[in-house]
């Protein structure tokens, strides 16, 4: 086994109490999402709210369960902005083209 990798790669993260609090938070946000689903909001508003809450949940999972909060900040800078950039590119290029095609759809 690579001892160098072992000592570098494995480190302490959050405590049991913090992880449990994060877990309860995740379950609570899930409950809020289910509640919002019955508010009969417009699909665009609903999608925006649900995606925003999911991003919060994803942030909690990445920070605490995946230990990103405890890694070197250079790793976060290396991974996260590139990922967000690629996802933004999907929205910027995909939706205008898709809506353009929708206008061309025979009615």
């Amino acid at each position, binding site marked *: *086994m*690579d001892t*160098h*990798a*072992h000592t*570098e*790669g*494995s*480190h*302490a*993260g959050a405590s*049991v109490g913090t*992880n*449990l609090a994060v*877990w309860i938070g*995740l*379950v609570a946000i*899930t409950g809020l*999402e*289910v509640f*919002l*689903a*019955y508010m*009969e909001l417009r*699909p*665009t508003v*609903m*999608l925006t709210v*649900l*995606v925003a*809450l*999911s991003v919060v*949940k*994803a942030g909690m*999972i*990445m920070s605490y*369960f*995946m*230990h990103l909060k405890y*890694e*070197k900040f*250079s*790793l976060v800078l*290396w*991974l996260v902005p*590139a*990922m967000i950039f*690629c*996802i933004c590119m*999907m*929205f910027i290029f*995909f*939706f205008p083209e*898709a*809506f353009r095609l*929708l206008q061309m759809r025979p009615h």
Partner: protein
Amino acid sequence: MHEVKTDSTLSSAWSGGGSPFAMGSKKLGMWLFIVSDTLTFSALLVTYSYSRLTNPDWPRPFPIHPAIIFSTTMTVVLLASSLTMVMAVMAAQRNDRKKAVLWIIATMVGGLLFTGLHLTEWLNMITKEHFTITGNPEGTPLFGAVFFGITGLHMTHVMIGVIYLGIMAIGYGRGKFSAEDVEVNGLYWHFVDLVWMFVFPLIYLMSVKY
């Protein structure tokens, strides 16, 4: 004769002696895989979001009982398996192999329970509600392709994760794997959980039957 590097040289991130992100190659590799897989699921969910918003006759096949209660239970089960995985990683870091293996097995049980519930739901939709990948009795035929495609890809990840956990439980229990290997396994499992945090609200809650 090679010059022996001093500690100060090794501690410099870009000197060639240390890892820039202070982690092993396996963990870094898993992070890169997670980024690439995030883009795969993002592409699918972006496409889904577009289809959902632009089709007014999008089917709403999920009533509160039993569909939403069922899928919420699946979500809580997957979240609980993430917590057991956290406990497994913590036990591995304390070098408590017995407890780590038990927590990994608990995570596997969560994964298998999630898969079982998911397959039950699929069978119900296919046999009782006549939803298929190409059509359904309620509206836009695209729903089937989107629903079975995205949830199917996620379920495949869960099943691969359960196999990965099984290999880790045996290997770590026998002393073949390190605490870092368990942590890398944990990264994959939490990613599967993270993806479901988007699939559940977007696929299920956006198609609730009032």
